[in-house]
């Protein structure tokens, strides 16, 4: 369902362009989970952003569910983000002025696929039912990340992208959030691509891809 072929990306630097990705390729099947690991600056997050349509590649191809993202314009990529992809951010990125219930259903409503029962089931599975009327600032970090996962899965995306999903959580909360996320992703049949430094998180995935200096060095 995802095919990344020889993707390159560079950013302007003080001494000219800095190459972040130097021809990375990967494939991901529906329902499969993959951990992107590597040191800081190795290009993990950049690759995640390109796959999610948040940024555009300089070269290569990214084909998601048969659609090549590379030539798409801003509006088309926004549609892909709404309907095919769900992103779980390290900083949660919840909407502070909406309560938990509204945050969970938010992306599904944007995509026009909101399902009240599914939202309630997700909230229940994520242990958020008692907190539905609360606002993000009233929640702990672990609870906020669970809301973010709920928001992503409520839209039933084909591909879930997670950027250090437990990076802001303590070990215990992180483990609990991870377990929930893997369970729910498996239930929805979505593929999961996660960026992580954590060996423990990576070990829970079907496959791992190590990035070094913008290149995939091990599978």
């Amino acid at each position, binding site marked *: 369902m995802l095919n990344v072929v020889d993707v390159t990306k560079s950013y302007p630097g003080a001494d000219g362009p800095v190459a972040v990705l130097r021809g990375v390729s990967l494939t991901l099947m529906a329902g499969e989970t993959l951990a992107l690991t590597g040191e800081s600056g190795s290009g993990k997050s950049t690759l995640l952003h390109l796959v999610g349509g948040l940024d555009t590649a300089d070269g290569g191809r990214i084909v998601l569910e048969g659609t090549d993202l590379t030539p798409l314009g801003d*509006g088309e990529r*926004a549609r892909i983000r709404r309907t095919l992809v769900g992103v779980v951010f390290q900083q949660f990125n919840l909407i*502070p*002025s909406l309560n938990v219930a509204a945050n969970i259903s938010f992306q599904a409503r*944007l*995509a026009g696929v909101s399902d009240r029962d599914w939202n309630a089931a997700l909230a229940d599975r994520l242990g958020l039912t008692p907190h539905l009327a609360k*606002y993000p600032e009233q*929640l702990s*970090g672990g609870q906020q990340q669970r809301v973010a996962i709920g928001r992503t899965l409520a839209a039933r995306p084909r591909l879930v992208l997670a950027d250090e999903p437990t990076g802001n959580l303590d070990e215990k909360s992180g483990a609990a959030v991870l377990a929930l996320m893997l369970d729910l992703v498996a239930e929805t049949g979505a593929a999961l691509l996660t960026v992580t430094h954590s060996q423990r998180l990576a070990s829970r995935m079907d496959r791992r891809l190590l990035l070094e200096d913008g290149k995939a060095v091990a599978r």
Partner: protein
Amino acid sequence: MIGAGLQALLSHWMRRPFQLLTLMLGLATATALWSGVQAINAEARASYDRAAGVLAGPPRATLLPRDGDTIAQDTYLALRRAGWPVSPLIEGRLPLPGGALRLVGVDPFTLPRDDLPQGTGDAATGQDFIGSEGRLLVAPETAERLDGADLPPAIPLESVAPGIAYADIGVAQRLLGLDGRISRLVLTGKPALGAPPLDRIAPELERRAPESGADIAALTDSFHLNLTAFGLLSFAVGLFIVRGAVGLAFEQRRPVFRTLRALGLTRGILLALLMAELTVLALIAGAIGVALGWLVATMLLPDVAATLRGLYGAEVQGTLTLRPSWWATGIGIAVAGTALSAAGSLWQVARLPLLAPAQPRAWARASVAALRWQVAAAMALVAVAIALALTPSGLVGGFVLLGALLVAAALLLPPLLHAALAGLARFSRGPMGEWFWADTRQQLPGLSLALMALLLALAANIGVGTMVSSFRLTFTGWLDQRLASELYVTAKTEAQAADLLAFLAPRTTAILPIKSVDIRIGDAPGEIYGVADDPTYRDNWPLIAAGPDVWDRVAAGQAVLVNEQLARRDGLWPGSRVTLPGDWDAPVAGVYSDYGNPLAQVLVGLASFDRMFPQAPELRFGLRVPEGAVAGLRQALIDEFGLPPDNMVDQASLKQFSLDVFERTFTVTAALNVLTLSVAGLAILTSLLTLATMRLPQLAPVWALGLTRRRLALLELLRALLLAFLTLIVALPVGLLLAFVLLAVINVQAFGWRLPMHVFPSDWIWLGGLSLLAAALASLPPALQLSRIPPSRLLGVFANER
């Protein structure tokens, strides 16, 4: 998608109702001041339009005497007999308490019915109207003013403009003391076939095309432009609040915008939603503002009406009429103001990179580059101002000059305050002092807009205050010179005038006849006065430019004097020549100041005047009377001649009346000044309250290190006072510069006279105290809030691990 996006955006305001209130308050206040002024202007202009066309029908050509005098009744009869369809009209002014009454005498039998104001037809053809006592057709409010006056009974009619009375021509001739005379002849149709040409029947008359009658509107344009300028200033100050509130709301929602975009909302839809949100807010606030503007206008209109009556003789209704166009314009300006305030923020959203860090940056953090841009923009505006000052650019140019100066000063304020705070920081001792100065500089960007608003309001106060006080000082001295006669008397008829002269001769030290005619000088309305050769004029008349032997030459009919307005308008200074009726190319011997008079005026010797206008009645006299004899003489005139009190005005009353007119002229300005200052105070309050919610991360560490909440609150108060004081220091030279421009450029362009500038430091101390008080009051609520904040909230700042 649109519903969800809109919900996310609007939920921000639900969670921050105070911010919403600030935005609405700023916009509503700005709109209120602007639309209030516009309502006043619209009402005044509507009144001018009604008054301008004395006759209600279509504009008609008229026949007028070439020499500016009146027309003999025989000429009228000759024209009628020759087949010219003319209707006689006489116009004049009757002195009344609260302003002169414009009397229009018409002949209801030769004037088409439609030419009289709507609904007067029956009243104007009745027996009472044309009878010997006669009737006056007036507006209801004018009828109230006529109560007790020695005039024919009044018939109130809604369709008549205020300040005008219609009477039968015979009655009007009697009331004006112009028996057998006609002001002009109205051509009601085409002359009969074969009718002899005009120059054969009445060569002394000339035919004039239908006039727009917009003289009053032209005269009062400058007054309304002044009002508009102040309305605009108030609006601009209000927009600073709007800009602050919108800027903050966008900044706080920056992470939300990124999240929305990351979740699939397109840039176009996000911008469209933001614009829709702002438009809805602007429409609501605009509607509230227009309603408030209505209240402002209702409060100010009576003063404006009195000013216009006293200063220009223009009658304006004291009540407002609802005009749909005014509502639409008011709401439109609110939407436009919001668009202007939000343009920068919307542009930033349009360029918002999707992947930039999502943390909110410090609100309006001032980078060195931004400050440099501000200085560069300010310098460009100063250059524009200098260019305008050096080239004659009219009244609008004068206001653009003022605007450029004010905006330049506002742009320069943040860099100046930065520099001042950096300088003051050098004197700090100890860590507390260092923290205070550093923290104050960090607060500056968030407060900049409010401080700019304060600067504008203070500078406007100082500038306008200096202008008004300078004017008052000059005007009072000028009145003493100009109103030298102790008593002014107006006779009812020329026969009575002759009797009066005989009676007064032994009882006065001098009798100074005052004869005048209204006439066009150049292309504008003006007046010519004839004055006697008397030491009163030689000793007192306020000449501002004079050639040799001024008064001898005027008395001998060899030269004339012109007022400053005419001199500046047509460049008529001593040595120039002015063309007067009878083709007299008169040399100008001197120029005199003539404050408060919107008309061009020429002063000629009495003999010259009589030669030009032999028919002009001699009804008014200035009397020189020994001190203490005024009251007795006044009473004697009442007893002996039955002169109504309104026909005798003593010097003291006249001075008082003139000063009252003067004070009223600036009542509206003063009110707008106070309102502008209040809006600036509001801007500071809202900025401080908004900042208070973002201050905790900066204050919590200092509190944790051992400073009490009370001490922190006091420092916050001190900071607000310090910034207001520094702003006042900057506002002072800006205000004085503003006063100079008002006196040397705007007044000359608007009124035709230039005034010397005086400074009044005691006023500045008063204003300084007031602005510090406003700053203290504005900073008190957030300071109190801080002094009582629960420690748990301060500790919350450190609980980032949640």
